[in-house]
């Protein structure tokens, strides 16, 4: 694909949604299409208090380029819906099967809104797409986005009337390795989970993690069972536990986690790392980087053994993407 083509989503309460595209690796940017119209009639989803609330377009949370077509890109938006552009972002068409899923009227927003915040494309099957929605859960399409299926089995969410409900879960972030797309690792609002059958079943793998709450999760580029998470204190304390910035790595596909601290601040640190703010490169040694709410980007060039702050004094990080150039 074209490594020089990069998309960025800007949104604000003042000026609405803007999408910009760079075709020169980020040197220059140009606005592209920003019209996201739902297909057909829009119904309602649940509001925070359980009352029906009309479906609206609010903003784009996630952009995911096609793995096969340089002009195709997907957008995950709030309120939860998925759009696709086949002309480099100039025009957007909704894939309405997600929003109109039979469970859609039950979906309710998380604290940040009701959003498709993650899109994963299966490198081995162009018809398979995974999405995660706060706070509905994870869904899978096996027909290119026409129809969708909840894949939250095995996931329990305390405080739901039915903790094992099909939808209503808080999947903060799913991750997969490109060579094993049936295995998903999910950082949930509470706990970490693994599925090995494309979401049909799942097991909790939180093991010895210090807390059950966090946002980002990533898989090592070369080691299929090496997974990274950054737990934070709790669902109401959005900062790392005990004032220590610690990445946790499992080399066994979960359950057994080792703490990584070399080069990370270990006292008086009260930052958060958001769901889209950790990323791995594809080098043999697998570099891993994450950006914090405290305005730094930390990078480990050796899979997490050693860390260094490579960027500082920027605004809080919402997203960190790493590109491995030839």
């Amino acid at each position, binding site marked *: 694909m074209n490594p020089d083509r990069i998309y960025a989503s800007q949104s*604000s*309460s*003042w*000026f*609405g*949604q*803007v999408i910009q595209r760079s075709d020169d690796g980020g040197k220059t940017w140009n*606005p592209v299409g*920003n*019209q996201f*119209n739902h297909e057909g009639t829009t119904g309602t989803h649940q509001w925070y208090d359980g009352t029906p609330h009309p479906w609206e377009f609010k903003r784009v949370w996630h952009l995911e380029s096609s793995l096969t077509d340089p002009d195709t890109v997907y957008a995950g938006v709030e309120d939860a819906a998925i759009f696709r552009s086949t002309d480099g972002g100039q025009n957007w068409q909704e894939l309405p099967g997600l929003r109109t899923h039979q469970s859609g009227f039950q979906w309710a927003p998380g604290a940040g809104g009701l959003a498709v915040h993650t899109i994963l494309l299966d490198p081995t099957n162009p018809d398979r797409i995974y999405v995660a929605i706060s706070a509905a859960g994870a869904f899978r399409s096996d027909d290119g986005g026409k129809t969708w299926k909840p894949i939250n089995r095995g996931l329990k969410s305390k405080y739901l009337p039915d903790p094992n409900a099909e939808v209503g879960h808080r999947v903060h972030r799913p991750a997969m390795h490109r060579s094993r797309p049936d295995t998903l690792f999910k950082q949930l609002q509470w706990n970490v989970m693994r599925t090995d059958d494309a979401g049909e079943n799942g097991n909790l793998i939180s093991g010895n993690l210090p807390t059950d709450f966090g946002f980002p999760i990533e898989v090592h580029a070369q080691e299929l069972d090496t997974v990274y998470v950054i737990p934070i204190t709790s669902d109401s304390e959005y900062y790392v536990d005990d004032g220590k910035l610690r990445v946790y790595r499992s080399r066994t596909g979960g359950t057994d986690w080792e703490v990584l601290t070399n080069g990370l601040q270990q006292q008086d640190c009260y930052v958060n790392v958001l769901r889209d703010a950790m990323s791995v490169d594809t080098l043999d040694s697998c570099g891993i980087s994450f950006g914090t709410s405290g305005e730094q980007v930390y990078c480990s060039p050796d899979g997490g053994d050693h860390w260094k702050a490579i960027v500082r004094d920027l605004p809080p990080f919402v997203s960190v993407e790493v590109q491995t150039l030839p």
Partner: protein
Amino acid sequence: MIRVELSYHLRNLARTGTGVTLAVGGEVTLRSTLDALEAAYPTLRGTVRDHVTGQRRPLLRFFAGECDLSHDSPDAPLPEAVQTSREPLLIVGVVAGGRVTSLRPRSSEVRRRGTPLCTFCDGTHNRDGQMCPSYVRHTFQAMA
């Protein structure tokens, strides 16, 4: 020709300076002016008005000649000073903070000051202590 001044973000998107000059066909209203603006600068589509409803974004305001036109009908003629390019139409983001109520003068304040504050209505609504129907049609520079 109609002069329009854009806020920082909008002129960045439009790749233009602070002010633009537009030829507006037919009656010069907010709607026709914004239509001309979006035709000349397509990247501004959806940033000032909602794509579907055409409604002004809630945190944007339209000002001209020290008057707030944000709540006027989009099909109302723009003030003569804008139509003759004597004044620009300002498209600005609201400034967060402060007390919104400070924008609303009490009628007693209007009466007390008794100054024709609006260059468009020449204070017509101020006479006899009456408020302009659009509550911030009059500016309160003289009250500062």
